[in-house]
């Protein structure tokens, strides 16, 4: 993966998080600024990298998920050697 692809994926993850933190959408000017940055990286990416990006970020195509994971978290202190979650009681 070249530098542009690496940057593209970072920008896309950042964009998705920013939208989430902002309640779903960003102001138009910020969306435009981010889109421009993404376009710049996209132009530098190879066909294989673009295909990979489409595979990660294009529309929903998840096949099946459980209704409930049946897992709960645990209270841990620094130095703990237990995993942070377990099967729900």
């Amino acid at each position: 993966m070249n530098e542009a692809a690496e940057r593209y994926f970072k920008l896309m993850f950042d964009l998705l998080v920013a939208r989430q933190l902002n309640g779903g959408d960003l102001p138009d000017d910020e969306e435009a600024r981010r889109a421009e940055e993404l376009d710049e990286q996209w132009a530098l990416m190879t066909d294989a990298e673009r295909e990979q990006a489409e595979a990660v970020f294009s529309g929903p195509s998840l096949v099946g998920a459980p209704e409930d994971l049946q897992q709960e978290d645990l209270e841990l202190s620094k130095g703990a050697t237990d995993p942070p979650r377990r099967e729900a009681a």
Partner: protein
Amino acid sequence: MYLSAHHVVSPVRGEGINAFYYVHGHDWDADVPPQMFPEVNPGELFDQSIAIPPPGNRVRSFLDVVAPDGASPTEIRQGFVVFVSRSRGTPLPWRGTFGRCLFHIGMDLGLVNQWHTEVAVLFRATFTVRGWGP
């Protein structure tokens, strides 16, 4: 290292993201050794970021990342991208090893329609608790 992010919900405390950073004290050159799998040996908890205090919160989604303690953010991000692109279209949970990293993602049915965002938020949380800010 073992990085884990949870999207949790509590009827009392609400909903949010908790993240955990464990160290193994080991590096490796190839696939993740089975003795470093989180269910076998998560390592030693070094730091955590808690939005909804445990215990007993229901886990709605999680992302686990296992990598050598000295792995770079670039190595993990590149492995993660390959992992997601290859796993997409298969039933959850997803689990796979890419390079020196192991990834594991699960989420409940209610989050599937927003899975891109969910994955991005969890991924960001693992980086943040590790100290790799935006």
